[in-house]
């Protein structure tokens, strides 16, 4: 294990997050089993009172979960100098078998945490606890995933040994490399450019339509998710090439470095934030007309659409500017 302040922060933070989620899950199971808003029993009133505290603490826990993804990526990037062969976070993550599964877990948990925060925000704006059961039922999915992530995190950091020779990103994200990274790198740039810009345009059109007319929410949400997936593939397939101005360098991590103005952080924040906001819009749709949510959800959805469109616009503008002003011209 390599002792670094960021590594310790991630380990301790992850342990605390898991503990909090486990505690909240136990409480959530009681809510799912015993909650009855019509009852004035001592148990019901105790559950009502405690849910404020649990929700508040969980909000901070989930917010940490969001931040920890970027702290993890930063740490992986920062540690690359410790390993022979590593040029960026790609190499550090490849040091042992837990690196990439851990990264995927952290992205999945980022999405779930973001969605939980959106649902909890809506729930606390209602006076009749409209989403209380849904909110705690979601913990049944999130808590095991976060605990698994903590396990992966410990396995990964405890398994980091400085004498390991790892692969560089040029090799890991080469079109000749078998596996997902190689397949994504090998995606043809022309069709991917078309798919990326079409996805963004359709998301914008459906978002504006839903914002103005209040219809087509599920289509917008599905398109947001689809565009998110296409954008991740596009980053590896062709977007990175314009940043590096190298037709063969597909690494999605080098853009996080100083040489590229840390632009990767902005791109990932925009993409992940926009994705969560877009999917969250759809998740709230079934509650749009129920009880006190009838006043809360529509305005919240409008804010989420605006957030999604703004963040996707930032992503698209950065990518477009880079494509226009880059010395690299693909397909010629």
């Amino acid at each position: 294990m390599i002792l670094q302040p960021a590594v310790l922060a991630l380990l301790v933070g992850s342990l605390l997050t898991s503990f909090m989620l486990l505690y909240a899950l136990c409480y959530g199971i009681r809510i799912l089993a015993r909650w009855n808003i019509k009852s004035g029993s001592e148990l019901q009133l105790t559950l009502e009172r405690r849910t404020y505290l649990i929700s508040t603490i969980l909000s901070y826990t989930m917010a940490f979960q969001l931040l920890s993804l970027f702290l993890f990526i930063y740490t992986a990037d920062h540690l690359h100098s410790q390993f022979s062969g590593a040029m960026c976070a790609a190499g550090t993550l490849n040091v042992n078998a837990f690196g990439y599964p851990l990264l995927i877990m952290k992205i999945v948990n980022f999405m779930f945490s973001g969605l939980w925060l959106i649902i909890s925000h809506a729930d606390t704006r209602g006076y009749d606890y409209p989403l209380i059961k849904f909110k705690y039922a979601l913990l049944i999915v999130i808590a095991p995933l976060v605990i698994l992530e903590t396990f992966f995190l410990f396995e990964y950091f405890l398994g980091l040994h400085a004498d390991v020779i790892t692969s560089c990103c040029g090799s890991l994200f080469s079109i000749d490399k078998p596996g997902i990274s190689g397949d994504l790198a090998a995606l043809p740039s022309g069709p991917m450019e078309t798919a990326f810009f079409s996805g963004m345009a359709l998301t914008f059109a459906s978002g504006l339509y839903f914002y103005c007319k209040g219809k087509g929410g599920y289509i917008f949400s599905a398109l947001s998710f689809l565009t998110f997936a296409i954008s991740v593939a596009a980053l590896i397939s062709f977007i990175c090439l314009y940043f590096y101005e190298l037709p063969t360098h597909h690494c999605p991590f080098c853009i996080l470095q100083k040489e590229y103005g840390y632009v990767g952080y902005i791109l990932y924040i925009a993409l992940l934030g926009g994705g969560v906001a877009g999917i969250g819009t759809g998740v709230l749709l079934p509650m749009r007309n129920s009880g006190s949510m009838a006043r809360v959800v529509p305005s919240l959805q409008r804010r989420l659409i605006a957030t999604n469109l703004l963040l996707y616009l930032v992503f698209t503008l950065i990518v477009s500017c880079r494509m226009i002003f880059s010395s690299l011209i693909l397909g010629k």
Partner: protein
Amino acid sequence: MESGDGGTRCRHEVVSVIRLLHVTKSFNTGKSNQFTAVQDVSLEIESGRVTVLKGPSGSGKTTLLTLIGCMARPTSGRIMLRAIGSSALPGMEEADEVEITSLPERFLTGIRRTAFGFIFQHFNLVRGITVLENVMLPAYPTGEGRGAVHGRALKLLEIFNISRHAHSRVDLLSGGEIQRVAIARALINNPSVIIADEPTAHLDTKLSGEFMEIIGNFKAEGKTILIASHDPLVHDSALVDMVVEMRDGRIIQDGSGR
């Protein structure tokens, strides 16, 4: 329905505005020093009437008032308000019934602020600031314009004949004047329910009489008044419509047929 007490109250429809269903309030629950201040109280309080909670010290009167006034939550039981502060909740009409014990604090604050006016036993005026500022204080969090609040506060001080002291510090007032400032403060947000906890405990007979006159005026305006008192001048007053006698946290007599 019309009041049968010969008072000056306007003729208006009487509906149950505050309903308590099996309300219990315990402190230090589960510990060796657990104390139950209010036990299984069910009660209906009607609008536009004067209701007095009567009983010795420690009978649970003040605790019950704080529960009704949204200042504390019961350990069990429910409290419902009809046509009181409902409009503070999104999507609800003023005439709707609201169950307040389950409300999240952010909504409870809105109801407490607009629906209830409190007159405390020790009046709890803020020393060091003026009479006018004390009266205006409960209106600040509502976000209403200062001009409107200022005008209303001055009008209230005029009604209670203390406008000459508007810019004096409350520390310099007499007992009777302090009482009237406290009443004016309770009215600044135009509440539909006035809650008074032992309001005559520190007043002489003359001032207590004046207080009951003011209560008579509130009743005439159609306000609902809820008083906790063991002062005979209060609970034996002709203005009172219902006396609820409490002992050891329980209702022992509900004089609603008064």
